[in-house]
């Protein structure tokens, strides 16, 4: 059992409120992705759970026990730091073996070597094992940092943008690998990312943070389809949701200030006219940048679209999201 519960946790650094009254239940074996811009409190949340910082108020419960007075070692968490935090005077092998050599684990030497090698294979760095940690590229350092978390089997994994400095191909491979490892071990994982695809494909739950407050927590599809506010709506979706004045289209409910249109909410070929500004062929999708009533609207179209700049097409909203003046979502259900 390694359920993680945050109970009204607040944390202040000097004058800035990093976390304000955050409550969250992370079920055992869940994969939680935390979303939010820089400074929203994602890293602070991880550090509090790890035990590197102490909350000012509130309680943190791991596996049914309050861990406020526990050291990071007692909490048995593994963390991938944003800035890698490798031991610069050690080789990659020594870095990976470091957590295994904890007296708390007391792993035999051949076991250490076997595990280090296995993890290095997973992360595709076996040829770098004898390099010094400082002689690696950014992506390699990041992989060593992930490896250091994966060599042991802790109760909880905390990962702070672990794939951010990898190239697209490796990122896609490791995304699958990480999800696989997490599912196999049944470990609880808290994961910070800016990457849409990572959030949508890996998470069982998504938590959206805004200036230290947890504004929405739920399944990825649910957060995507029923965002509580314009803020949450802009966190997910590629291309981003189009936020337009609600009165541009007929049929807005009373009190609606903003209409939120994701590409799938825009029906092409009927409705009001729009001008094509730009066509982007991304390979797996084609994006249309449209000018519509003085606003720019981005949507997708079929891959082999023959639209060109200056074309006139007509569009119509379908089961769109409506938000009131405060940005709160008025629509329920997609």
């Amino acid at each position, binding site marked *: 059992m390694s359920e993680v519960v945050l109970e009204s946790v607040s944390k202040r650094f000097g004058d800035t409120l990093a976390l304000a009254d955050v409550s969250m239940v992370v079920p055992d074996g869940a994969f939680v992705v935390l979303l939010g811009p820089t400074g929203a409190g994602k890293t602070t949340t991880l550090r509090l759970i790890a035990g590197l910082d102490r909350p000012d108020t509130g309680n943190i419960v791991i596996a049914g026990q309050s861990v406020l007075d526990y050291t990071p070692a007692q909490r048995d968490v593994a963390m991938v730091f944003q800035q890698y935090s490798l031991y610069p005077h050690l080789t990659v092998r020594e870095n990976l073996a470091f*957590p295994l050599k904890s007296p708390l684990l007391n792993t035999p030497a051949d076991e250490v070597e076997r595990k280090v090698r296995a993890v290095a294979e997973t992360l595709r760095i076996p040829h770098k094992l004898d390099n010094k940690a400082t002689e690696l590229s950014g992506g390699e350092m990041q992989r060593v940092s992930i490896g250091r978390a994966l060599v042991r089997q802790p109760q909880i994994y905390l990962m702070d943008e672990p794939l951010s400095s990898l190239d697209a191909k490796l990122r896609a491979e490791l995304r699958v690998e990480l999800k696989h490892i997490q599912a196999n071990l049944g470990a609880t994982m808290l994961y910070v990312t800016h990457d849409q695809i990572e959030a949508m494909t890996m998470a069982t739950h998504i938590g959206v943070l805004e200036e230290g407050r947890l504004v929405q927590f739920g399944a990825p599809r649910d957060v995507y389809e029923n965002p509580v506010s314009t803020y949450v709506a802009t966190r997910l979706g590629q291309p981003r949701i189009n936020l337009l004045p609600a009165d541009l289209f007929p049929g807005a409910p009373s009190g609606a200030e903003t209409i939120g249109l994701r590409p799938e909410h825009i029906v092409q070929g009927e409705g009001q006219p729009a001008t094509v500004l730009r066509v982007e062929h991304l390979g797996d999708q084609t994006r249309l940048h449209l000018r519509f009533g003085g606003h720019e609207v981005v949507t997708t179209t079929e891959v082999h679209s023959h639209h060109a700049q200056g074309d006139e097409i007509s569009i119509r909203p379908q089961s769109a999201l409506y938000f009131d003046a405060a940005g709160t979502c008025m629509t329920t259900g997609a």
Partner: protein
Amino acid sequence: MSESPITRMAEATPQPLARKVRGLSDRAIAWIFVAPTIFLLLAVNIFPLIWTINLSFTNFKANRPNREVEYIGLRNYERILTDSDIWLSMQATAHFLFWTIFFQVLIGFTLAWLINKKFKGNDLWTTIIVLPMMLSPAVVGNFWTFLYQPQIGLFNYVVAFFTGADPSSFEMLGSVQLAPWAIVIVDTWMWTPFVMLICLAGLRSIPDYIYEAAEIDRASKWRQFWTITVPMVMPFLMLAVLFRGIENFKMFDLVVQLTGGGPGSTTELASINLKREAFEKWRTGYSSAFAIILFVTVFGLASIYVKALNKVKDR
């Protein structure tokens, strides 16, 4: 011609000079700039060194400049290496060198480690601790002779207070057994802050997040100290030892002020012995040879040490 600032500048340069400077290669201009320094270096460093080597093969005595100078080959070197006085002074130097470095590293690192903890007023403490090394060695030597006074000295009083012995029952500077330790104590008092400062720089260069990672990796404080702190401070510590080693190999002023090499010749370090041979006994050729031997020794030791230092840094 247009009146931009650049063209005006170019016109302002006198034509003949501009042409001359333009005629020189970059290399030639570089040589013109370094020439004064090279000349000074040759005049005050290299020439005296070569001249000393030359003198070390002669029986020249500087107080008898008119006497005919004879080249006597390696006889000076032979005599030095078989002279028991010289060996005694080398032993005194080795004793001084070893124990000063031992205590300064031990105490200096400990102080640095303590002062690196985040507590109120640690900057003030750093300044206070560093004070001794800002004093002149001659002054330090002079006032420690008072502290070591058997009748009125504070040092004797403090030792007596803690051990219960009679303060005038021992003389730090007058006793054959205690004098070598007396100079070790004073040098340690004066230069431990230096080692501390360098260790502190080393400790401050270790980022907090390394310790955080170690916390997460479940390393105890003890293990963090031995696997992170010590190896990462080691290059700094070795540098401090190099500086102190070279300095103390040629230690002169402080010890002359304290003991003058006595009692007997128990604190007569190599450099004090050398000064005696050269400017009291006026055996210029002989002392030149001794100087060369000392130079080669310290140069050799330092080179080996620097190699080791680089190895630690690359590790």
